């Protein structure tokens, strides 16, 4: 009886309501995961309530990290405000990434469209792709100086080929049938590109951008490894030298939040712009 009643109830609800419920449940489960992880952190470090199981040197408590954050907000770090460190890192990252998108996407589209251009430009890009870009840092320092430019180049170095290649692949995998359909409808080459090839490649381009995003944030650490005295990754790196684990964690958390937020923004843009993604 109870069973059939439950069935009836489910039958009475429309798809959208069920979907919303499943969504809410998923979000709740995700929240629980984070709460549990946070609980373990609190438990292991004691947070002043009991003796820590792990020395604060290795893992400071959430409270200590929060206090460090407040201290950094108030006093800054090594003569500069926390906002300045975050800002400079963001500036380096955003400049490198915008450049890669503004130049890399059109270049990738061009490579996808034209065989001769591909023959000229693709091999060098593919050749440098496996080179570990961090290994080039000393070279970049010599070439581009110890200012921001060398940092921007280090971040752009792995991001650029990913964006170019993914845009190129996206163009090359556009369904031949759709292009033929457009041609048979009298579309010029330009119209085929603008109204068929470009929109059909957008999902692939977005995938490339998201992959490149996480690599770009990772490269931020490499970029601030040396020859600078500002930036959030630099802050974490130097704090580690003084064993100020709480400051290291503040830096790490800020970078994690930055990466996560950027990914969310790109995802939201993607959902808004390419609703047809994966619908073939």
């Amino acid at each position: 009886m109870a069973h059939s009643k439950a069935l009836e109830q489910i039958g009475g609800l429309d798809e959208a309501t069920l979907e919303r419920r499943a969504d809410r449940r998923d979000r709740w489960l995700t929240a629980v995961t984070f709460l549990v992880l946070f609980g373990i952190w609190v438990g292991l470090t004691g947070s002043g309530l009991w003796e820590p199981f792990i020395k604060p040197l290795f893992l400071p408590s959430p409270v200590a990290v929060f206090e460090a954050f407040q201290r950094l907000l108030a006093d800054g770090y090594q003569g500069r405000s926390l906002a300045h460190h975050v800002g400079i890192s963001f500036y380096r990252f955003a400049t490198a990434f915008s450049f890669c998108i503004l130049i890399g996407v059109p270049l990738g589209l061009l490579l996808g469209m034209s065989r001769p251009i591909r023959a000229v430009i693709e091999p060098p890009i593919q050749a440098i792709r496996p080179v570990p870009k961090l290994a080039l840092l000393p070279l970049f320092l010599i070439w581009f100086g110890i200012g921001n430019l060398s940092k921007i180049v280090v971040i752009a170095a792995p991001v650029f080929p990913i964006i170019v290649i993914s845009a190129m692949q996206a163009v090359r995998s556009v369904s031949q049938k759709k292009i033929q359909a457009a041609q048979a409808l009298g579309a010029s080459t330009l119209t085929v590109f603008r109204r068929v090839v470009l929109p059909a490649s957008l999902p692939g381009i977005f995938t490339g951008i998201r992959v490149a995003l996480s690599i770009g944030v990772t490269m931020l650490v490499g970029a601030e490894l040396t020859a600078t005295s500002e930036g959030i990754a630099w802050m974490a790196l130097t704090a580690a030298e003084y064993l100020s684990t709480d400051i290291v964690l503040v830096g790490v958390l800020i970078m994690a939040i930055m990466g996560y937020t950027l990914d969310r923004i790109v995802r939201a843009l993607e959902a808004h712009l390419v609703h047809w993604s994966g619908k073939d």
Partner: protein
Amino acid sequence: MRIEPFDLNGPDRRDGAKLVVEQLSKSFGSGASAVQALAPLDLSVRTSDFLCVVGPSGCGKTTLLNIVGGFERPTTGRALIDGRAIMKPGRERGVVFQQGALFNWMSVVENVAFGPRACGVPAEKARHDARGLLELVGLSGFADRYPYELSGGMQQRVGIARALANDPEILLMDEPFAALDQQTRELLQEEIRSIWRRTGKTILWITHSIEEALFLATHIVVMTARPGRVKASFRSHFSESTDPLIAATPEFTAAKREIVGLLRSEAQRAQSLEAAV
């Protein structure tokens, strides 16, 4: 018998034909790995003909359509529309693909308006006409949806409306209903027949289904196994009938048996050919 053998290349047919295929052949690849898809093949299609092409799988039907569509170049021979050699795709030849050729990033009405807009019709007028065509194919309620929100049968209707939007002189269709279920198929067959009657369009239709060919065609071409050439061609009268149950008549069955017989021997030949490779 409601079908009779018919020479598609009689001298009276070639003059003034809408589409002429002359000694057309196509090979893919070169040297030892070359595959000859089409043997020299001749066809002529007159205005308002509904020509169905049936043949064993791999005999070159799609290749033929791709050449007439202008997507591929023949190895020898040529295809002519109104006496002009086909060099590239053109708006006077509307193409309907089996599936997956709609633009998912445009709404249904934008899909249908695409051709006219690409040919310079102002967007507003193109959209207005597109809505009219969607009504013709029974989709007026779905104009602002996206293709991926539609069923397979509805998507094919959009494809047909899109091809009709340019008012082409000839429609090229490569198994447009092959991916649909029986009921939807029959429904759409009736629809395409009534569109053909109303508009008098010339249609080149490729199909695996003999019933479909008998039901729709004024002329039927049976192709041989690869390399494809014309094995037999017929004039068919079933499409003139308004009887919805025509497929149940003895004449229909007899005609079907005749074509099945032709195809079966070709299919067996095709199989032994594949086995030899």
